[in-house]
Structure formats: C-alpha cells, structure tokens
C-alpha cells in the first residue's frame, strides 16, 4: 500500500528538500478495481476528474471510479493552449463559463495544488468593421451578464500589449479589441493532477490504462462497463471522453451530433518575457500567449475533416504562423520547438452537450470542441449535479442533447473567439 500524499506547503517543501526530494509520495493511489461502484466516470481528463471530485465533495457520492484509457494528464487536458475566459455571447454560455471562471479563481486553494492560474487578461482583436461591430456586441452582452469586459481602441491595444503591430498598413490592421481582465491561463496538466489528487483523497478510485470496450445495459438501464481490465458494475455512468465520445456512444447504440477533428497547437523556443497577456484573433485565426517557461504557446485551427489520428495538416500550421507573424513581426525568426494535435469533438452549434440520455443512468458530457479547458471546473460541477440528481443543474439545462430535436441551439460559432 502506497502512503497517501500529505498536504503540500512550504514546510513540506523544506522537509523534502532535506532528503534531496527523494521521498515525495505519489499524488494518488493505484487502486484495486472493485466489482461495483456508485458511479463510474469514463475519461480521466480534466472534466472527468472534476466530475468525480464534485460528486464526492458536493453530493457525498464517494464510491466512484474514474476509468482512463491512457494516463492522467495525457489527453487533451495536457494538450491545449490553456486559455481561460468567460466572454461568451449568449446568456446560457456566459453563465456556465463564468461559473467555471469563478471556480478557477479559488482552485489552487481548494485543491491545495498550485495550478498557476494567472489572470493576465485575454484580448480579442478586431481587424475590420464587422469584427468591431461583432466584438462590441459581445462586449455589451457580457456587460449585461455581469461579466467584466472592456473595449480598447487601437492606441489602448498598443499600450496594453506593446509588441503587437498596430500599423494601419498591414493586411488586417488592428482596429480595437475587447479585453477581459479576469481571464488568463493556467498550468493545464497541474489541473488534471490537482483534481486527481484531491478526488483520490476523498476515496475516488482512479484507474489508468483501462480502456472501455462496451457498455452493459438491461431494460433501458445501464448496468456497467466492460473494460480491458474486466467488467465493472454501476447504475450511474458518466461519459466524458472528448474526441472519442462518438466511439463510446456507439457502444450504447447512441448517435451523437459530433464530429471529431484534429486541433493543432505549437510551442516556440523559450525567450524572455515579451507578451504578458493572451491575444486572440478570430478573423486571421491566431492566438498566442507566453508560458511561464518563456515559450510562446500558439493555437491553430481545426482541420476541415474528421480524424482520430492526433495529427493535422501542415497548411493549418502555416496559416496560423502567417497570422502570428503579421500581428507580431518580432516573432518572425523564432523557432518552433514542438507541434502536436489533439482530437476535439465539435457540435453543430459549437456548444457542449451535458445531458441525460434515453438510457437510464447513462450521462454524456461532450461536444466541448476547441474550448473545453476553460470550462473544466464548471463542467464537472454541473455534470456531477446531473449525475447525482438524475436531472440537469440550471446551468446545463440548456445544453441538453434534446436541443437538436427541439431546435433550441446555442449558437456560439462567433463567440468561440476563433472561427472553426
């Protein structure tokens, strides 16, 4: 039996320094799989782990298994560009993303784990008249929803982010920007590790390298899952499988309105601090921030076809870099160190699905597409509520799977900040 992790503090740091940091304990157990759980979460990414954490913390359900095909922090949670913001257009999205943002603000304390949440601001840049109108509309919508947002003109943009090229002579000049100062970034894999450790402490079994191969049902009720490590029974199963949601749904005979596509990102060589905010542009499709290590973190767009290959086309990277170099000419000689792709599940209305299904006890949390990271704690919070009470929380009621039949879509294509 592995000794459980202790509270992290400056004292534990000093104490472990005395023994050359050779005695840190694993942050979570490697548990024996039980035959039956009160709830099973399929997918050990950020959203799955927060779901388990809030099931235990808010709803007192502690006999939970999180089943992960790979390892914790090895999926999209560890692959994204770490941007956190809540400046969405529609009321439904603004409510759920801002709930998440509020949870981000207390996360490191709540988890006793430094997720390096940095509210450095997110700037959405406008390059033409349409952008200006659209972003001002979003700014006012945010204002009415109580979300902090302000409008910056070109001079103010230059002042806020001095390295940006505000010359009127570039192809897509900077005409202004919205700025959400509470928005920012966080250390993405620390989020997965922090939640895994906190959930484990409350008794959640985190089962890694365990692939789900089937969903067992009888008389319209879910009874358990078949995995590469045997059958595990439970009457409540939450699927949080991101890009592979359709694959799992097929095991239960459910068809989802999702398309799984590669989304690429890249990271440059580390340099001294040069950009202390996040700059996003919808029109020329680029977003960039600088990590604490000094690397530029650059996000590209999705490839235009379905794929599970975790790699995308070079033309997408080329387009993104062209945009970045126009907006930041001083980055033109930087070398890119790493480049990768993750598989994102995109909904027709660019909003997530956090929903019950027609199978009793089977729940889906998917369709976060290109922007799920920012919602991590909020998504888990409402999904835990949905699983525990067998009915949606007020915040995720609009994100039911039934909206595709009823027509009540939450169209966030524009407000997703970058066009996909």
């Amino acid at each position, binding site marked *: 039996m592995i000794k459980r992790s202790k509270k992290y503090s400056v004292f534990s740091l000093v104490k472990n320094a005395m023994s050359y940091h050779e005695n840190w304990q694993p942050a979570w157990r490697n548990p024996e799989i039980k035959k039956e759980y009160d709830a099973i979460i399929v997918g050990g990414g950020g959203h799955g782990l927060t779901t388990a954490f809030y099931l235990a913390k808010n709803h007192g359900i502690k006999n939970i298994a999180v089943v992960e095909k790979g390892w914790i922090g090895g999926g999209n949670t560890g692959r994204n560009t770490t941007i956190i913001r809540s400046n969405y257009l529609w009321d439904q999205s603004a409510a759920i993303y801002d709930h998440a943002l509020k949870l981000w603000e207390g996360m490191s304390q709540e988890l006793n784990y430094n997720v390096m949440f940095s509210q450095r601001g997110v700037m959405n840049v406008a390059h033409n008249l349409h952008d200006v109108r659209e972003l001002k509309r979003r700014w006012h919508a945010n204002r009415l929803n109580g979300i902090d947002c302000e409008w910056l003109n070109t001079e103010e943009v230059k002042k806020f982010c001095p390295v940006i090229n505000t010359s009127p002579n570039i192809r897509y000049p900077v005409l202004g920007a919205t700025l959400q100062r509470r928005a920012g970034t966080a250390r993405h894999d620390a989020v997965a590790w922090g939640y895994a450790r906190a959930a484990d402490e409350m008794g959640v079994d985190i089962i890694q390298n365990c692939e789900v*191969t089937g969903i067992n049902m009888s008389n319209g009720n879910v009874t358990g899952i078949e995995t590469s490590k045997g059958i595990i029974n439970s009457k409540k199963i939450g699927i949080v499988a991101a890009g592979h949601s359709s694959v799992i749904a097929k095991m239960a005979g459910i*068809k989802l309105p999702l*398309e799984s596509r590669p989304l690429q990102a890249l990271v440059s060589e580390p340099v001294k601090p040069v950009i202390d905010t996040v700059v996003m542009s919808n029109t020329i499709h680029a977003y960039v921030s600088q990590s604490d290590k000094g690397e530029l973190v650059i996000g590209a767009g999705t490839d235009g076809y*379905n794929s599970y290959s975790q790699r995308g*086309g070079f033309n997408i990277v080329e387009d993104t870099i062209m945009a970045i170099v126009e907006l930041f000419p001083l980055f033109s000689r930087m070398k890119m160190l790493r480049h990768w792709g993750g598989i994102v599940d995109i909904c027709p209305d660019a909003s997530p699905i956090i929903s019950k299904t027609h199978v009793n006890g089977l729940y889906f949390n998917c369709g976060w597409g290109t922007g799920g990271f920012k919602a991590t704690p909020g998504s888990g919070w409402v999904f835990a509520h949905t699983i525990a009470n067998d009915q949606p929380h007020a915040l995720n009621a609009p994100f039911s799977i039934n909206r595709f039949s009823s027509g009540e879509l939450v169209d966030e294509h524009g407000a997703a900040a970058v066009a996909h």
Partner: protein
Amino acid sequence: MLLINCPYCGEREQEEFTCGGEAHIERPKNPPDLSDDQWADYLFLRQNTKGLQYERWNHSFGCRQWFNVARNTATDEILAIYKIGEKPPPLESNEPLTPSGEPHIGSGNFSTSKK
C-alpha cells in the same frame, strides 16, 4: 497533410479540397411527415466513425467537382476514391490492435495494444 487523387484532375494536395462530411446521407423523401427526432437525425447526428468512413470531398480550388472518399479516420489513410452516385466499394480498414478496435497509430495509447 493528405494527398487526394481527384477522379477528374489527378493527385493534388489537400489544401485544394474541402471536405463535405459524411457521405450517403440521403435527403428525406417525405419532409412534411418527419418528426423532430427524424429531422435531428438527418441534420445533425453523424456516425463520426473511428475507422473506415465514407465522406464527400469537393475539389474547391480545382475542378470544383464533388466526389466520394473512403478513408480510415484512425490513420488518415485514403482507401478508395469514387464518383458521386457510385456505390462505395467493399473495403476493410486496418486490423484493430486495441480492444475497442483502434490501430496503434495515433491512438495515444500503446499500453493496451496487443502488438
């Protein structure tokens, strides 16, 4: 990046093409009789297959013709290209290596593959 063999122009880079999504989805013949769920199925629900997928592509920066492609979405391997209106050729995608039928390429999970 894919190299796509347009049935009208020959092999070109993927940049010249646009993917039109899942192929062989037929527009309902009796639109007024459809229930909301049936409309949802036609408009929004997709197979989103991991493995052999039949899809439509358009040579948008070339001849602008539509055609069908059979592709393994787990590996991006193009298995067949055939014209609109033709039946998909009988095909089998790669031998699955993991329990759920993934090939090892791109699965991000080597520990459960049978090798």
